């Protein structure tokens, strides 16, 4: 891969000769501040509790996973990627993300989503600033209106709030119906997948905890919307990834499918029934597997570039396919097991739909595994580390759920 000319997709994240860039000293300073804020939020010392309730533990774990993902990508990305730029840009995003998780006011969360969106939209890319701000602006607006509705005494407005909160998470993550196109020539860090793979998972776990407890009626609307959108994204993602022509499209759809599982879990977990604990645990496990496993793999697949159809599957490719398909003992397996366990107690049609989607999922997983080519050198090490992480998440899922208490 080192002989190829540099494409736009491999352009430096922050500086250099790119036409749009954050000035480097400012980026480093902001990155340092972001890293300190993220560490404080993950640690959440008792001193900070005087400013408000501490952030939910699952969200803190996800912020830590995001930090690990930034370190992993900075350390193990290919030589064409400017690793320091990637590290500082990631640290800035991590800091805002940590603030987002820590702040107890939903309105403050909404404006921070806007800021995060603007920061991301200033990264060099082929889509315009306006186009890239659509999702964050929609998420901030919907969240603000939902909070406005929560504060009124109208029963109808409260139901709209439940609906709005679920839609705000979808908008922030760039899921269907807010999904955006993925330009093959755009740098991967500036693409819309960054929201689904890096920025939105912590938000999805923090937001319900900040706005809940809703009453039974609102909670039903919130959960039903999450389950409905989750199933839609699951079907869209699995079938889309299976039928997609370009490999890049298959990757984009695979994120939608992962988010579909997480949203169904969040929706079933929000109902409050006895079996909802398993669903919440499934959602909690699904999102950490996106951040340090699927997202880095996507970025590395973009660095590898197009792989010829004649290249066969190596051992790492097969293992990658197994990990991405959710086979045991990798991270996706306990997610599927817990989700099916909860769904069979809730409704058999839901369980059947989930099972069908999981079967279709296997088809595109091995195709995605092939997109990393025949890895060697630093890339092979990177993939081995990622697979190990997936293995740990799969084997230690029980311990992770016990620690996170989702």
């Amino acid at each position, binding site marked *: 891969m080192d002989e190829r000319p540099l494409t736009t997709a491999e352009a430096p994240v922050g500086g250099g000769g790119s036409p749009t860039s954050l000035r480097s000293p400012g980026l480093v300073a902001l990155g340092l501040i972001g890293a300190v804020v993220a560490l404080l939020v993950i640690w959440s010392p008792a001193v900070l509790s005087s400013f408000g309730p501490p952030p939910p533990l699952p969200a803190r774990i996800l912020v830590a996973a995001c930090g690990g993902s930034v370190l992993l990508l900075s350390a193990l990305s290919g030589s064409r990627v400017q690793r320091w730029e990637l590290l500082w840009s990631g640290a800035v995003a991590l800091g805002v993300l940590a603030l987002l998780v820590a702040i107890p006011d939903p309105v403050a969360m909404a404006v921070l989503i806007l800021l995060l969106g*603007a920061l991301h939209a200033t990264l060099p890319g082929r889509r315009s600033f306006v186009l890239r701000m659509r999702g964050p602006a929609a998420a901030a607006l919907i969240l603000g209106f939902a909070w406005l509705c929560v504060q009124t005494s109208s029963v109808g407005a409260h139901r709209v709030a439940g609906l709005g909160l679920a839609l705000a998470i979808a908008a922030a993550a760039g899921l269907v119906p807010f999904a955006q196109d993925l330009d093959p020539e755009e740098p991967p860090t500036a693409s819309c997948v960054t929201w689904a793979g890096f920025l939105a998972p912590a938000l999805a776990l923090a937001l319900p905890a900040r706005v809940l407890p809703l009453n039974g009626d609102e909670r039903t609307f919130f959960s039903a919307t999450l389950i409905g959108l989750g199933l839609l994204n699951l079907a869209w993602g699995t079938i889309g990834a299976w039928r997609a022509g370009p490999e890049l499209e298959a990757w984009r759809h695979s994120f939608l499918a992962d988010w579909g599982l997480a949203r169904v879990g969040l929706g079933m977990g929000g109902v409050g029934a006895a079996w909802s604990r398993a669903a919440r645990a499934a959602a909690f496990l699904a999102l950490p597997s996106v951040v340090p496993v699927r997202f880095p793999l996507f970025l590395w697949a973009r660095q590898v570039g197009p792989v010829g159809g004649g290249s066969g599957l190596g051992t790492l490719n097969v293992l990658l396919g197994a990990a991405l398909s959710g086979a045991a003992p990798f991270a996706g397996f306990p997610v599927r097991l817990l989700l099916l366990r909860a769904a069979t107690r809730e409704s058999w049609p839901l369980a059947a739909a989930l099972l069908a989607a999981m079967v279709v999922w296997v088809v595109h997983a091995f195709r995605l595994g092939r997109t990393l080519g025949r890895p060697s050198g630093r890339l092979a090490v990177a993939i081995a580390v990622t697979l190990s992480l997936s293995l740990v998440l799969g084997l230690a899922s029980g311990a992770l759920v016990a620690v996170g208490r989702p």
Partner: protein
Amino acid sequence: MVAVSDGRRGFALGLCVTGTGLAIVALLAGDRWGAAVLLLGGIAAGALRLRDGPSGWRIMPPGSTPRIILSLAALAVGTLVGVYLTTGPGTPERVAAVAVCGLSVARLLTADRRAAAVAAAAGLSLALGTMGSLLGQAAGAAVAVALSALSMAVSGPDLGAVMAEGRARALPHDGSQPPTPDG
């Protein structure tokens, strides 16, 4: 003003007026600290806008008629939402927040330049801030200032917008395909 202007002075004045207006609404509701925060945020965000974007005022340039109509419609919808669809105290704040949010998002999603989009995002941040407590108001004001300062920290044009403009120019006006180099 942010919705119907295309120049840096127009954006600056628009953000100042937005901050002042939202501060007055908060003051009428007895929220002095919130009013002060929103006023400062609006003025600071407006002042920072003076250093970025097309020069001059460019208020209501050719082609801005839909935006003017949208401004009037947003006020009507905001009033409707604030008075009829929500109940309880704080109706003026809700009308102001809904109207400014609606206009800002509409401007943000239809802007063709980054400067206009940033100004609209700053206005949206101020308006969202009014929906919350003092923490929300402070966050809204701070993010508005940060958004205004952000585009100054970024050098160069909006590459995506430049490319989109280039593609639009390359296409003939009758909708046919552009001629290829080999004829």
